[in-house]
């Protein structure tokens, strides 16, 4: 079997993925699987998706040669895939449009979503407004407090934001609560899951919607640089921007695929969110994958300066690509990501999301080991306006 043929019909990527949910959700997931299967073979659905990406999101997003940054890092040429230029400021919108179109096909008038930093919440509230649907977003109480601008954005767009006070009061608890809502309102409600994780068919359909990123790069790189890159780098929380750019590159054997996890205060400190680097396989949120867990199988709290990477699991396809050796996964610590954030601001006039800054930070390490005519393509998954308070705080300033 080819790596690109996965998952199997029950959502397995080798030993990972699958459907690990309570019985009440089984029928809804089956309904979604059947409908998605029809949709992805329906030219009208695909044409509408493409139309929306072009005219509403502003795709294709450009690939940009970051010459001054490349010069400063002293080695390979660094190119940026500018997902930060999408409507709503991140790659998340590619997926929420796809899922909202599915929701509409299925006659669901209410959508729900979980969010960490608030980017997926904003993208969900945006498409709900765009298609005239009711929208409820679950967000950890901790995240509501530290991401107040995004909370207000969601409210402006007409969504209801529900703070989740259980567990660690962050993304994983928001996901639990969204699942609980879904199981209670299963007939009326479509769950717009924000990353390439969760029970089948979510990891597959989120990947498929995000693959537009990599497909565009495969065309754009030869146009701009004369060839495909030597390495593709993307940050990995749940892993949707990474799988979106990696997947179309899987058949290009000469292209290294490098996912960057949140190293937090360093792997040795235990305060990080790097399950592929320091976790073990387990079952959480409906799928099997590498997880941050203790010896009793309890999920442990994660840490990252970037709320979007602060998640104890990772999409199942990444676990598979790691074991298969087709992709490598490395950690980048908070301070390294923060330095790369400032680099991109000063050298290129681009304020990146702290999530994406992790990918830039790894390019900073890798570039000097490569030749000047080699190419690194970094997925700049989002813009950093949402992070200015966090960055100011790290610098000891208040805005």
């Amino acid at each position, binding site marked *: 079997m080819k790596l690109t043929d996965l998952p199997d019909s029950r959502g397995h990527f080798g030993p990972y993925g699958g459907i*690990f949910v309570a019985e009440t959700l089984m029928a809804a997931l089956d309904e979604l699987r059947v409908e998605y299967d029809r949709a992805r073979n329906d030219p009208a659905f695909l044409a509408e998706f493409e139309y929306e990406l072009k005219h509403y999101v502003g795709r294709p997003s450009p690939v940009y040669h970051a010459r001054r940054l490349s010069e400063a890092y002293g080695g390979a040429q660094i190119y940026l895939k500018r997902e930060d230029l999408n409507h709503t400021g991140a790659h998340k919108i590619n997926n929420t449009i796809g899922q909202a179109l599915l929701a509409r096909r299925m006659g669901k008038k209410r959508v729900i979503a979980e969010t960490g930093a608030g980017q997926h919440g904003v993208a969900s509230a945006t498409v709900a407004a765009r298609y005239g649907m009711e929208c409820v977003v679950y967000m950890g109480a901790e995240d509501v407090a530290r991401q107040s601008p995004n909370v207000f954005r969601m409210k402006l767009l007409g969504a209801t934001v529900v703070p989740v006070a259980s567990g660690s009061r962050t993304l994983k608890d928001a996901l639990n609560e969204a699942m609980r809502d879904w199981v209670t309102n*299963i007939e009326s409600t479509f769950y717009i899951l924000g990353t390439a994780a969760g029970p089948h068919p979510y990891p597959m359909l989120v990947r498929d919607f995000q693959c537009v990123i990599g497909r565009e790069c495969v065309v754009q790189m030869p146009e701009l640089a004369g060839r495909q890159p030597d390495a593709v780098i993307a940050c990995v929380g749940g892993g949707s921007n990474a799988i979106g750019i990696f997947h179309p590159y899987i058949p290009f054997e000469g292209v290294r695929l490098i996912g960057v996890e949140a190293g937090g205060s360093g792997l040795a400190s235990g305060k990080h969110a790097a399950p592929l680097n320091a976790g073990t396989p387990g*079952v959480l949120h409906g799928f099997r994958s590498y997880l941050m867990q203790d010896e009793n199988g*309890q999920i442990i709290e994660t840490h990252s300066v970037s709320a979007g990477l602060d998640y104890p699991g990772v999409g199942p396809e990444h676990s598979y690509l790691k074991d298969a050796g087709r992709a490598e996964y490395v950690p980048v610590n908070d301070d390294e990501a923060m330095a790369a954030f400032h680099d991109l601001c000063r050298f290129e006039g681009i304020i990146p999301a702290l999530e994406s800054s992790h990918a830039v930070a790894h390019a900073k390490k890798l570039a000097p080991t490569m030749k000047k005519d080699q190419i690194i393509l970094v997925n700049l998954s989002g813009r950093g306006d949402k992070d200015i308070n966090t960055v100011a705080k790290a610098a000891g300033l208040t805005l």
Partner: protein
Amino acid sequence: MSRIGQTFTALKAQNRKALIPFITAGDPGKGLTVPLMHALVEAGVDIIELGVPFSDPMADGPVIQRASERALANKVGLKDVLAMTAEFRKTNATTPVVLMGYANPVERMGYEAFAQAAQAAGVDGVLTVDIPPEESHGVADVFKAHGIDPIFLLSPTTPESRVEQVTAVAGGFIYYVSLKGVTGSASLDTEEVARKLAMVRAHCSLPVGVGFGIRDAATAEAVARIADAVVVGSRIVHEIETAPENEVISRVKHLVQDLRRGVDAASK
């Protein structure tokens, strides 16, 4: 025949229905679980469901979530739950114990290692909420090989076409979730449940227990009229949560005796 099977056979001979309470192991304190189990038996229960604490109880409502958080704060994990069951078995050889929880703690221990340890501790059934039959290949067989009944859920959203698939791998009894939603959800429509149970029984010879939404003697009686077993969780856990620690056992006992009267009223 397993202890669970024997229990249902004996009840049937007496024309009685089973009462199955749920408590979370380690809630409110590590030392209170085994005394609570014995108190439940004294109050007249037939099978005990013992919740294994998990950090992310996705299918549970706030009441059982908080119980799980209290138990985790008391540092109770799967190994402790097995130890508690073994302790209970020292003085009770007849009341079946069903462990109910999520996949990951079991996955972490390893299914074979867990099944061996559970058998040694005297566990009779295991319900892992987030392992549906589609993902249970091997797991149900491992449990059965160790004399443990793999218990599965059916729900109002389960289509008839799936019922046979579920019951084919299930053992002990079927746990029918009477409501959409999480544990501790609101009202219960017994007529609707009765219609669904008739369909389930057409495909399945195992006894059928009904849980979700049972909070007093009246609802227990209504459910006992249509089901083989009445499962009560959140209401009991709520009692544990709100009682002063020195009254937990007496308050739970009092509540369960009341539920027992409700269940038995259905047989009269």
